[in-house]
């Protein structure tokens, strides 16, 4: 392993001595250029977002005209901004539904398809197919099913005239309709990741469990699940982050209004919309950063542990 050298200091001096002056410069550039890109265009802006969230900048004036306003933007968001409450509720609902729906289903499908089964590869391909479509396009494709006038679902339900339902338009149900469509895509993703994890499980473990007379369910719960801990964490983090990032499908349907408010759409409306409330939009974005940071840290701890 490459990292062994880190823990065995005696090897390091030898390695460094083999670098010529040109090599040192090369290595420095190989690290510096990508780092500048990622820090400059990802971490710098993320930090700037947090700082701007404490200001009243409207985006037009000079940077020198910025006033620090403390927690004002956060107060406005929570008390004086009607879409905020719904957006938070929708994101939480998205997360919960994704966990009990697509994520769980993806895991179950992976466990089913992991065994020797006729047509396993074909099933895997079919469930994986929606993953290559963008969420914006998924919105288009499901419009064919959900639409009030020409949609399949209304036809199947036999609804006529005024009784017809606009699944993407009705604010009471459109989030659920969107969740079904988005879940259709998420399931295959989780299935694939879990399947890869299951394939990596040492077959000897299963054999040992089988010899001990453990049934399939028991084997999974007692033997496989604990070994899958790293994959479980990856799936947890991916589901949370994807739920927080949900944006494209709501934006393509109605720009995140009327029942489809999400934090991501509120940020976007406030920043690129006509209003251009930069400080306020930054406060909303900072809430997203704060939540994702928790899970990014969980993910990093897991990943870095594996690096050792």
């Amino acid at each position, binding site marked *: 392993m490459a990292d062994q050298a880190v823990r065995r200091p005696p090897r390091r001096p030898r390695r460094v001595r083999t670098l010529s002056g040109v090599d040192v410069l090369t290595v420095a550039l190989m690290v510096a250029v990508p*780092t500048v890109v*990622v820090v400059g265009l*990802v971490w710098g802006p993320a930090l700037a977002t947090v700082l701007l969230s404490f200001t009243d900048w409207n985006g037009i004036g000079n940077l020198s005209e910025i006033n620090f306003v403390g927690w004002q933007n956060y107060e406005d968001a929570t008390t004086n901004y009607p879409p905020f409450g719904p957006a938070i509720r929708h994101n939480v609902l998205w997360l919960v539904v994704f966990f009990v729906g697509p994520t769980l289903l993806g895991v179950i499908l992976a466990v089913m398809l992991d065994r020797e089964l*006729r*047509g396993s590869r074909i099933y895997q391909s079919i469930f*994986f197919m929606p993953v*290559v479509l963008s969420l914006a396009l998924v919105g288009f494709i499901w419009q064919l099913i959900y*639409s009030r006038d020409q949609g399949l679902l209304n036809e199947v339900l036999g609804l006529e005239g005024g009784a017809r339902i606009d699944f993407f338009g009705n604010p009471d149900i459109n989030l659920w309709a969107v969740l079904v469509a988005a879940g259709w895509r998420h399931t295959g993703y989780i299935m694939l990741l879990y399947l890869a994890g299951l394939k990596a499980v040492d077959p000897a473990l299963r054999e040992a469990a089988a010899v001990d007379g453990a049934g399939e369910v028991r084997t999974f719960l007692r033997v496989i699940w604990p070994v899958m801990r790293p994959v479980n964490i990856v799936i947890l983090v991916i589901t949370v*982050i994807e739920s927080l990032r949900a944006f494209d499908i709501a934006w393509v349907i109605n720009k995140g209004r009327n029942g489809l408010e999400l934090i991501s759409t509120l940020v976007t409306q406030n920043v690129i919309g006509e209003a251009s409330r*930069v400080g306020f939009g930054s406060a909303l974005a900072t809430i997203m950063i704060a939540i994702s940071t928790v899970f990014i840290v969980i993910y990093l701890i897991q990943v870095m542990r594996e690096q050792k």
Partner: protein
Amino acid sequence: MTAAVKKRRKPVRPARVVLQAFLIVMAVGWIFPIAWAVYNSLRDFDYTSVNGYFSVGGFTLDNYVEAWSRGEFGQSFYNTAIIVIPSVLITLLLASMVAFVLARFSFPFNLTLLALFTAANLLPQQALLVPLFRLFLNFELSYDVSDSGSLYDTYVAVIAANIAFQTGFCTFVLSNYMKTLPRELTEAALVDGAGVLRRYWQLVLPLCRPALAALATLQITWVYNDFFWAVAFMRTGDKMPVTSSLQNLRGQFFTDYNLLSAGSVIVAIPTLIIFFVLQRHLRAGLTLGATKG
């Protein structure tokens, strides 16, 4: 399918039959939305409006011709190519450079750097929106180069955002991959007096071809599918890449569902081709990132 199961030498267990039945139902349900779009994209609007969508007949290819010109897909596919090709190439170049250093040298900052890169891809895109939007808007360019007089509303802005956002993930995958390469290889080259650049370009990169192929496939799909950056940083409709142009196509297509179907299929075709031809690489790319090695 039950007949197929019976052919197996093992005795048929009822659980297996139930499992197969469940999977068949699920698979049919899963493929249905795409199949429905394809089916109706091939049918005449006048025919389906008289006979309903639950009918057979009225087959035509006209919807594709109509959707292609109304959606101005010629232009938007061209725009997508302008964005995807440099984004993916530069992302892989930058990522492989850092990954090489992380995998082949043991500097004290290695782990920190790896964390810095890996985490970058996990932030929500909106977290970067405000500063990047302002940065591009205030980055003044001559009007000869940019119609907006700034980086805003240019391909460069969208490409830069894509590169910055995707480099982290690729770095993580590539550095893990490079660490699995036998160390003796580069050490032998070291004895031959090969410099760092040669070891990177002529020795390690060619060995990483499987990982690079997997990542390139995945990145092409992701950048093609990216909706947000162009929506955020572009204003001019005829500069929009395919996926982002969907936000403007609603009005064009949502009155005629055969046209909407055809438009959806047109947008799906590139990634579906990748799916059918390069599925192995796609899966490898995704799973290399999530599970180690």
